């Protein structure tokens, strides 16, 4: 019950004075640093996400070795100063493979979220705004999408479309349409039945004006923070499907696939599977931490 405050007693009738003159850059920077220091977890999460993003965009800046060709002489080495994440059975540097794998996992994640977000929120918007039979059909469609577990739905879709990371991303996007559509629809319904929308009609506004100026801006917030949350979920799904062998084939350095490859050596070289797994976990944790902060800020 830590968040319970005094029962709402309204804004005091006394008007508060506007904030003073704009503070100088130095004061702003100091304020920002202070805010960062107050939430060290969030700061670390941002640093990790930015780092992984850079891995994906300019991998060559972070490593000089090749993610595909290894040196067989130095295979299966445990983590050391030369190979901080160790080397695999083909003598490839695991750190390099993680750096190059970032672009696979990250782009698949963003692609999946984009598909789910665009399709889902459009469907939800139509359902909530149109109502009636259209809404009924859309609700049943959502129900059907939810009835098959995400992972199984993805497996079937990928099997039908072909085994590669792009299709993995597409399938995850399709599977997440249901949750986007549900959230969007609920919010659109709330806004459509609000008094401020009614009063806008009362002032003489036409449907399109109300939709663009009132309904959309007030209902898009929830799906945006869901999109942030979905980044973590989608990344996990990309990794899981990669782990099961549905993504691009070896020697792709995709993270989930790396865990599956390392699993063979679990008894002797546990780091081979655990390090890629830990990379995934840390990145997903960071994304979720950030998306929670975004959700709270709204």
């Amino acid at each position, binding site marked *: 019950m830590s968040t319970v405050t005094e029962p709402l*007693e*309204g804004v005091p009738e006394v008007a508060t004075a506007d904030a003073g003159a704009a503070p100088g850059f130095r004061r702003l920077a100091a304020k920002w640093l202070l805010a960062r220091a107050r939430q060290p977890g969030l700061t670390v999460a941002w640093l990790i996400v930015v780092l992984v993003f850079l891995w994906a965009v300019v991998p060559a800046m972070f490593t000089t070795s090749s993610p595909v060709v290894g040196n067989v002489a130095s295979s299966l080495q445990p983590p050391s100063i030369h190979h901080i994440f160790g080397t695999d059975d083909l003598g490839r540097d695991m750190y390099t493979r993680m750096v190059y794998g970032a672009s696979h996992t990250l782009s698949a994640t963003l692609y999946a979220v984009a598909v789910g977000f665009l399709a889902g929120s459009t469907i939800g918007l139509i359902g909530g705004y149109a109502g009636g039979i259209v809404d009924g059909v859309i609700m049943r469609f959502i129900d059907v999408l939810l009835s098959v577990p995400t992972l199984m739905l993805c497996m079937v879709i990928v099997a039908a479309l072909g085994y590669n990371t792009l299709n993995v991303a597409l399938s995850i996007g399709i599977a997440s349409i249901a949750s986007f559509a549900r959230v969007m629809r609920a919010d659109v319904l709330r806004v459509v039945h609000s008094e401020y929308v009614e009063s806008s009609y*009362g002032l003489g506004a036409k449907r399109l004006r109300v939709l663009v100026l009132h309904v959309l801006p007030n209902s898009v917030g929830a799906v945006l923070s869901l999109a942030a949350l979905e980044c973590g979920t989608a990344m996990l799904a990309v990794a899981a499907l990669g782990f099961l062998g549905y993504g691009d084939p070896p020697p792709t350095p995709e993270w989930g696939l790396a865990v599956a490859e390392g699993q063979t050596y679990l008894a002797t070289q546990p780091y081979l599977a655990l390090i890629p797994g830990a990379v995934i976990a840390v990145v997903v944790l960071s994304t979720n931490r950030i998306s929670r902060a975004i959700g709270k800020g709204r």
Partner: protein
Amino acid sequence: MTAVPHAEAHLTTDSPVPLLTIDDLHVAYRLEGKLGQPAVRGVSVQVRPGELVAVVGESGSGKTTVVRASLGVLAQNAEVLQGRISYGETDVTKWGDRQFAKVRGPFVGFVPQDPGNSLNPVKRVGRQLVEAILLHDRKLGGPVSRQLALEKLRTAGLTDVGRIFDQFPHELSGGMKQRALIAIALASNPELLIADEPTSSLDVTVQKTILDHLDRLRAELSLGVLLVTHDLGVATERADRLVVMQAGRVVERGPTALVASKPREPYTRRLLAAAPASHNSRLEATRPAAAVGDEPAASPILVTDGLVKHFKLRHHRGNSRLTAVDDVSFSIARGTTHAIVGESGAGKSTVARIVFGFTKPDAGTVTVDGADLGTLDRAARRRSRRQVQFVYQNPFSSLDPRFTVHRLIAEPLQIHRAVAGRPVLDQRVSELIDAVALGPRLLRRRPRELSGGQAQRVAIARALALNPKLVVLDEAVSALDVSVQAQVLQLLVDLQASLGLTYLFITHDLGVVRLIAHTVSVMRRGRIVEDGPVGEIFADPREKYTRELIAAIPGRDVSPGQDVANAGVPA
């Protein structure tokens, strides 16, 4: 009587030991780890057996915090910084949850402010009451506790107690729920009753019977009662002593008659002046009247004739029809205010929505300025919208939270392309914000950065943007604090005078009607039971229902002293 707190010592030397003593209490809330400004600063209150003490304050005064502190149920992020709370002569300030739990019930009972949500929705009423009994007397068997519970329900003024015992809260009316809650408060025969706004969500006639009943219980059981309310009328009518709170402090205290007739503090004077019951005539406009137009003032601007509206209801035994509005006819003369008054479910809001065009009537006509709304085509109806505007009860839900005040007021002008070009628009918006007595500084704010009164002024400014002839005000001042309510009412009267506006004023509060309306219709169960000029209705009500409504206005008997009436209402 070891340590009688200061302040009131001289008044109470011959009284018995107080049941409740709050002495110099300071409470603050911790938000995200930081202790905020204290919500309560140095409050002292005493309640003796058989005495009713009223704590009066507007929202933000900290009165709810005082209640929670004296029950030992402060939120977990609240901290008592200073001060002492005693039950009898026992200091309970440092008591833990278990100690408090033992006396909540047998010593102090609590009547909450929101009967609708204050009973557990998934438990039968009887069980919740039996629990209250068994928590303190485990030895009672099932049949005995049931008998006791039925008796408590009867004590609380309920009949048909056997049926109510087995019902769920959602099957009871608001007044019945509040009585069930009173029965729970009385379950273990407390000596002290703490009532937090016990009737503010109930209809006036129900409010009166509940308060009458509490009064009777106090006399019969010689209970001490701490009544917390925002309604000065209720407080002055019922209390032996008043404690007036503002922004966490006690600003005035004393015997009710003394405080009501000779208030020392300006704030108390303002509150008394703002209470609708302290006026017995219409507010005077403080702005010059508009030049009388060329249209004859006698021709009514709005005529409704035989309005009927049914809603379909489905029950477990087939369908039925609820007649929300039944043959309602009235007319409003140009430049006057017509009030429709009634309790919840009277159909008054449906009438407002029909007049504005949100709801289509099943029968009857609405004629605005000579044009029958029902016969107009879409385009003509859209144009006629400009002549009629609507103001909702809650400005925070009727103003788009993402719009700035400027955009909100500009919206109707843009929709109807009423002004050409940005400079003219800005000019018109600042005229409007000025007309509702708000500063241009507020134009860049969003609704949540405004107070309730400011937001409602913005809603009024928006309604005036297109120079309407008729404004429908649906409970437009009901959600506001009394002192703010008085200011907004004054503003409405002034605007009417300067712009020649006509109002249809929907309200549940007969007290407000006298301040603003020229004519009034009293509605009950969809029908108009009585109508006429406000003065006549108040002086000589013909119908029994109207007499009941007038009798239920709290604080009618309090005649404010001369200095109060002169304090005036700041616009």
